[in-house]
């Protein structure tokens, strides 16, 4: 089993056990560079055979068949994890909310119920993942970004009460062009880890697909022995392949 730790793992603190417990992770991307590969990596980590963590996945952007094929090439069988009850895959593609009430409260109650059911069975970490917050806004929040923030706040309560982790992907370029810059700032503020995928300043390339900037607030280094906490900001480039991602610092070959 591949236990090599790559640059993204180090930035997220995956060299320690259960690094995401109780944390909120925000992945940001744009039209030119999609950040969904980070989601796939995290899914694979959560569902790895070395841990007993569970995953609740809310799919707004792609159906199960897509994720199944992608993760299979990465070495993770989603269908098996579903039958083992380590993965709860919620297909939200056709979800529509009624005009009057916002669907986020209802959605959260369902998530809370599922977390409760999983908690009764296992004590390990539960991760709630949303693959596209902007589609959640259209589907469940009637295009009201305030409701999306409410939803994130509800999910944040899960991180403290039930020790869950929350991972969301948001398209940052949609909101940066709006008149409400506060929305993006609030999402970044709520998150403990922000992973931003951007294109290279030099444009398209076959061998480097983009760059990642990871901000890990309050990362505690256990190696120093004293638990000194510091903000860690890392920037590196990546290349996406079918069976994994290569990460490297600009100008270097892969580590």
């Amino acid at each position, binding site marked *: 089993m591949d236990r090599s730790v790559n640059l993204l793992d180090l930035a997220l603190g995956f060299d320690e056990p259960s690094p995401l417990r109780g944390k909120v992770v925000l992945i940001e991307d744009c*039209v*030119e560079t*999609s950040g*969904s*590969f980070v989601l*796939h990596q995290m899914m694979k980590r959560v569902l790895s055979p070395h841990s007993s963590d569970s995953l609740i996945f809310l799919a707004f952007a*792609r*159906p199960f*068949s*897509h994720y199944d*094929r*992608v993760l299979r*090439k990465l070495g993770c069988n989603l269908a098996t994890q579903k039958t083992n009850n380590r993965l709860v895959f919620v297909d939200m*593609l*056709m979800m*529509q909310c009624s005009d009057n009430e916002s669907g986020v409260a209802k959605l959260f109650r369902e998530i809370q119920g599922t977390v409760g059911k999983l908690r009764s069975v296992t004590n390990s970490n539960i991760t709630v993942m949303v693959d596209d917050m*902007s*589609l959640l806004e*259209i*589907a469940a929040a*009637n*295009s009201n970004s305030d409701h999306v923030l409410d939803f994130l706040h509800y999910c944040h309560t899960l991180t403290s009460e039930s020790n869950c982790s929350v991972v969301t992907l948001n*398209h940052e*370029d*949609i*909101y940066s*062009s*709006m008149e409400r810059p506060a929305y993006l700032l609030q999402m970044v503020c709520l998150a403990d880890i922000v992973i931003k995928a951007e294109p290279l300043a030099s*444009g*398209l*390339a*076959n*061998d480097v*697909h983009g760059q990642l900037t990871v901000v890990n607030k309050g990362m505690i280094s256990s190696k120093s022995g004293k638990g000194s906490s510091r903000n860690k900001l890392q920037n590196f480039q990546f290349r*996406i*392949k*079918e*069976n994994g991602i290569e990460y490297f610092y600009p100008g270097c070959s892969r580590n």
Partner: protein
Amino acid sequence: MAAPNVRTSSFSRNISVVSSSPQIPGLKCGPNGTTFISTGIRDLDRILGGGYPLGSLVMVMEDPEAPHHMDLLRTFMSQGLVNNHPLLYASPSKDPRGFLGTLPNPGSSKEDKPTAPDLDQGESLRIAWQYRKYMENQKSSIDDYSNDFDMRKPLERQFLAGRPIDCVSLLDSSDLSVAQDHCATFLSKFPRLNSSNIASIGRIAIQSFCSPLCEYSDKESDMLSFIRLLKSMLMVSNAVAIVTFPPSMLSPSSSTRLQHMADTLLSIKAIPDGDKELEKLLTGYKDINGFLNIHKVARINTQVPVIPEAKTFSMSLKKRRFLALECLNQAPVDGSSGTSYGTSGSCSGSSKSGALDF
């Protein structure tokens, strides 16, 4: 060091032109269990790596100063009619059926090509024997996957009569529920049960989706909701939808949302008239009708992005009839002017720099 071909893994895939069922022409197997249908423009099929994959949403950003998004729609629709794929067409016009009269007919752009030598004249033309096989391949331009379309000839009646074509006018109702019902009914005929057995496929073409002529054009959340549901329905159907929209008619955030929802994202840029700078930079400037930009290429069932050979292509008509997409060619540099490497942004994707190879 950039690799010349897009390689997703160390194995190179053998993409063969195989129809998955003898009753359905115009399908080609693609990587990762996807199936392609032709865009109607041979060059665009090649640039996108095969065509449009079934289940994908193609969005084209219009330029108000250039009508070339209509050519993309026309070739898409004609290709579907030639291959007998059911078609749903919606546009903000009182009589959408009239558009069918402007669809192009298949023609052969390689009919009277003087440069392809006959095999009989092989002796008089001195080609080394191992290159003769490439000359032979040029002749086989007829296949049932894609056609060259003669933009000046209207589509023959045999392709229009009796074909399942559904035309919807977006002006009919004040909201999108009618159009949504049409799409849902249409797509329910092509459910995707498993990737290997395809019973039938369909094509949807929606023109100028956010046109201010439509009554719903100020309700951006309704429009976004419609496209989102269309995309969700497409993902579980064996169909492709192409939607053109003018981004200047939407708020920047809604336009970016639509761009994110697209699997394949293209945009048309008009060529400025009589731009002396551009004329100096590009060869064949006078023949170019406009630019086509490739922003995103569909990646279904895979996480690896498809990097096209260039981001910008010039759209021109060969022999004034056949659409061609070409990489931008830089004109030979005039040594005396001194502005040799000052390319404009749209030319940065040029890969054919033969003129500058010293």
